[in-house]
C-alpha cells in the first residue's frame, strides 16, 4: 500500500469517527422524537420481555413480533404488532420543553395484540429498553460532557495561574491539587447526597452531579497544563521572543495556545468516558441520576446475576458505554497520530 493511499484511508477513518460522533449527538438530541415510548412508562404486563423481531407482513407492512419461545411472553406467543412511521403515541416533552405526541416510529394505536412490541425488550418493570437507552444516553453523555467542560475550565485556570505566578502560589496550588487527588470522591458524593435537601428534582440532581464530577476531576488537567506552560515558557524561542520585546498576549497567542489546546483536547477525550463511567457507577449505587430520569448507570443497576445470561438485552447500556469509550479512544489516537505525522 502506498503512503498516499494509506493517508487517504486515515483521513476517511478520521472523518468516519467524527461523523459517528456527530450522528450520535444528533440521535441523542432528537431522542424524544425517535423513541417509541417514554422512558418512565411501565408496561407492567410485559416485564423482562425479550426483544421483538422485525418482520415484513405483505398485508400490513412492518411488524414487531414477539419471540416464540420466550419464557416471559405469556400464553399468547408469536403475535405481531404493526409499526409505522410518524405515529401518535404518548406525549413526550422534547428537550424538556415542548410537548409532542408524535413519534418517528411506533406501534400503531388501537391494535389488540398481546404485546405492542419492544425493539430491545423491556426491563423488570416493563419499561422499554431501547427508549431508555437512547434517552438515558443523552443524560449520561450530558453529565460526561458537562463535567468534562467544567473540569477542563478549572484545570486550565488553575494550571496557567500556577505556571505563570510561579514560586509560592505554584507550590500552594499544586499541594492543594495533590491533596484533592487523594480524596476518595465516592465517599464525598455519598456524604453530600445525605446533606442535600430531599426534594431535589431529578433535573437539579443532574446539574449537581455535573458540578460534583467536574469539581472532582480537574486536578490532572491542572497539573498537565501547568507543566506544559512552564515547559513552553522555558523554551529558547520564547526567550528569543521576549528579548525581542514581544508582549505577553503575543507570546500566549503564538506559543502557548497550541500546546495547551492539545493537552486539553487529549484530556477531554480521556475525561469524557471516565466521567460517563463515574455517572454509571454512582447511578448504579443509587446515588446518581434519580428515577424517573433514565441513565445508563440506572439501567445497569436493574441487572441481577440471574439476568446476565437470560436477559442479555439489559446489558445494552454497557455495550453503549463501551462504544462511546471506543469512539473517544479512536478520536484521541487519530489526534496523536495527526500531530506526529
Amino acid at each position, binding site marked *: 500500500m502506498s503512503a498516499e493511499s494509506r493517508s487517504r484511508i486515515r483521513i476517511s477513518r478520521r472523518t468516519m469517527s467524527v461523523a459517528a460522533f456527530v450522528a450520535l449527538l444528533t440521535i441523542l438530541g432528537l431522542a424524544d422524537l425517535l423513541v417509541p415510548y417514554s422512558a*418512565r412508562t*411501565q408496561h*407492567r404486563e410485559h*416485564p423482562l420481555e425479550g426483544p421483538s423481531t422485525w418482520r415484513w407482513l405483505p398485508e400490513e407492512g412492518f411488524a414487531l413480533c414477539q419471540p416464540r419461545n420466550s419464557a416471559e411472553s405469556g400464553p399468547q406467543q408469536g403475535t405481531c404488532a404493526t409499526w409505522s412511521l410518524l405515529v401518535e403515541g404518548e406525549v413526550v416533552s422534547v428537550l424538556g420543553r415542548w410537548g409532542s405526541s408524535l413519534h418517528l416510529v411506533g406501534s400503531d394505536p388501537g391494535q389488540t395484540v398481546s404485546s405492542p412490541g419492544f425493539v430491545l425488550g423491556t426491563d*423488570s*418493570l*416493563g419499561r422499554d429498553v431501547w427508549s431508555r437507552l437512547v434517552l438515558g444516553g443523552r443524560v449520561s453523555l450530558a453529565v460526561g460532557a458537562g463535567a468534562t467542560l467544567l473540569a477542563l475550565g478549572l484545570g486550565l485556570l488553575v494550571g496557567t495561574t500556577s505556571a505563570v505566578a510561579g514560586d509560592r502560589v505554584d507550590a500552594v496550588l499544586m499541594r492543594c491539587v495533590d491533596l484533592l487527588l487523594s480524596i476518595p470522591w465516592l465517599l464525598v458524593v*455519598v456524604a453530600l*447526597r*445525605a446533606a442535600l435537601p*430531599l*426534594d*431535589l*428534582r*431529578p433535573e437539579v440532581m443532574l446539574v449537581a452531579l455535573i458540578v460534583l464530577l467536574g469539581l472532582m476531576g480537574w486536578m490532572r488537567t491542572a497539573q498537565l497544563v501547568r507543566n506544559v506552560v512552564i515547559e513552553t515558557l522555558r523554551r529558547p524561542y520564547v526567550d528569543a521572543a521576549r528579548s525581542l520585546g514581544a508582549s505577553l498576549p503575543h507570546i500566549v497567542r503564538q506559543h502557548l495556545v497550541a500546546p495547551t489546546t492539545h493537552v486539553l483536547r487529549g484530556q477531554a477525550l480521556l475525561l469524557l468516558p471516565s466521567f460517563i463511567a463515574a455517572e454509571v457507577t454512582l447511578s448504579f*449505587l*443509587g*446515588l446518581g441520576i*434519580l*428515577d*424517573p430520569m433514565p441513565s445508563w448507570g440506572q439501567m445497569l*443497576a*436493574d441487572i*441481577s*446475576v*440471574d*439476568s446476565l445470561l437470560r436477559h442479555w438485552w439489559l446489558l445494552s447500556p454497557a455495550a453503549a458505554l463501551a462504544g462511546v469509550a471506543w469512539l473517544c479512544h479512536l478520536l484521541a489516537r487519530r489526534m496523536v497520530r495527526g500531530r506526529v505525522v
Partner: protein
Amino acid sequence: MISRSRCWLGLLILVALPCQAVAETVCGDARGGAAVVSLPSEPRTFNPMVARDAASLSVLGVLMEEAVGVHSRTSEPRPLLAEEWTLSEDRKQLHFKLREGARFSDGQPVTVDDVLFTFTALLDENVGAPQRDLLLQGGQHVGVVKVDERSIRLEMEKPHAVGVRMLDSLFILPRHRLLEAYRSGTLGDAWALDAATEVVGAGPFQVQSYEPGVELVLERNPHYWRSDGDGDSDGDARLPCLDRLTLRFESNPDRAVARLGAGETDFLSGLSAERFELLQRSRSDGLEASALDLGPGLTYDLIVFNSNTPGPLPAREWLDEVAFRRAVSMAVDRQAIARLVYRGRAEALRVHIASTDPIWGVEAAPISVDVAAARQVLADAGFGWRDDQLVDDSGRRVRLSLIHSAGNANRGRIAAILQEDLRKLGVELVVVPLEFASLVERLFEKRDYELALLTLARGDFDPNPDVSVFSSTGANHVWDRGPRDPLPAWQQDIDRLLAEQMFEPDQDRRIEMYRQFLALLQEHVPVVPLTARHSLVAYSDRLGGVDAGLLGHPLLWNVEEVYLREERD
C-alpha cells in the same frame, strides 16, 4: 441412607411395621459428619443478655437452650430444658419442671439455681437485657420462686396472654460460670466476640474455633440432653446427629449461591426471588441442592408517612390528612410490586400480616387498585388538579419525597412503581435513596423526611412484637417518635388495645382485640403495608431432617435433628 431404604422395602413387601422401629431415631444410621450453613452477617456477641440482632440470636440458639422453645413451622411451644409445665387457670402462675440429666457443655448439670440466676439477671435493670421488656409487660413485676430441686414457679400480677411462649429465647445461663461477672456488675461485658471459646451453654453445639469475618466452627456438645430415640438417656446415642457445624459468614449473596452450587455450603436462607429461580433452574443442570419456598414470611415492606411534630411543611399538612393517606393507599398497585419486584414470590398486603398467618392473619381478598376512587377521595378532601397536577386547597402543588435505603435493587424498583402510581393521582414523588446510616439518622433523629419506604420484620406470629412498632410509645414506632399531645383518638385506641391484649387470658377475645387494632390501622392508614416477601431457602441434598419454618433461623432452630445422608453412587 440404608435405614430408610430398608424401610421402603418394608413398606413395599410387608406392612409398615418394621419401618416404625427403624424410623424412631432422628438420625437413623446417619450420625456424624460436618455441615456448613451460610449466614449473611456475623454475630455481634455471644452474650444473650446483650444480643439484639438476628445473627447473634441465631447463633446463640445453637449454643444455648431455653426452658421452652417454639416450633418454627407450627409455632407450638416445645419442651426443651423444661420437660413439662402448667399454666394456672387465671394465667398468673407458670409452673415448670426441669428435665433430669440435662447438662451444660462443660459437663455441669443444669439446675434450678441456673434458672433462678438467669431470671435474676434478665430482670435486673442494671444488666439491661432486651428480653426484660417482654417479661415486664406494662411494668408488672414477675416473681420467680424455687419450688423444689426441679421445679420453678413464675408469678405474674396480671394474667399473661402469651403464657409459656414467653420463655422462648430466654436462654438458661450457667450460674457457675457467670455469677462472678454478675456480682461485679460486668455481666454485659462477658462472652464478647473474642471470648468465643469460653462460652458454655446447654445447646446442641459448642464453639470449637472462631475466625472473625470468616467462620464459626462448632462441635457437638457431648452432654446435650436430647437422646436420639425413645428417651433412654443411658444409651450413648445423643443428639445432635452432626459432629461438626460450621457457620460461614458470607455477606455477598451471589457468592453464597455459588458456594452452594460448588458443594461448599449446605444451607442458605433469605434468598432473593431471582437467585431462588436461578437455583431452581440449576437443579435440572445437575445442581445437588433444592430450593424451598416457605411462603410469605414475617418481613413486610411498607410506606411510612412522617407524623412527627414539628414535621416538614407544607408536606405535613397533606400527610396529616387521612383522606390523602387513604388515597395513596388506594392508588398503590401492590400486586404489581409482588409480581414485578418479587417475581410473584410475595403477597400483596392489606394489613402488615400475611393471610397465611395461622392465627392472626386476615382473609386474603384481592386488593384492587382504584385510581378513580382515590381521586374522588382527594377531591372530597379539598384537593384539586391543575394541568393534571394535584394541588391543595391553597393552590400549592403536591410534591413529596420518599426516602429509602440505597443499594437495594428491589426497594429501588418498588420506589419506581410507587412513583408511577402516585403520578396517576397527579402527585410528583421524588425518590431519594440514602445510605443506611443517614437514613436511620433522618428517621430517628432529624425526623425531616416526608415518606419513607421501609422493610420491617415481625419477631413472631404472635402480635406482641407489634406493640413496639404500632404503639405510640414503642421503641420502633418510626413515624411518630413523640412526644405528642394530645394523641389522636384512634392512636389512643390502638395503644389501649395493644396494651390490653397482652393481659387478656381469653384467646378468642384477644384475637378480637387484635382484629379491632387492624381495622383501626386500615381506617386511619398511618402506614401503607405493601408486600410480604416469601422466605426462600436452599439446601444441599446431603442434608436430612430439615424442617424449615418462618420463626427463627429456618435451619438452626432444630439443628440437632439435622443429619447428613450417606453418599451414594
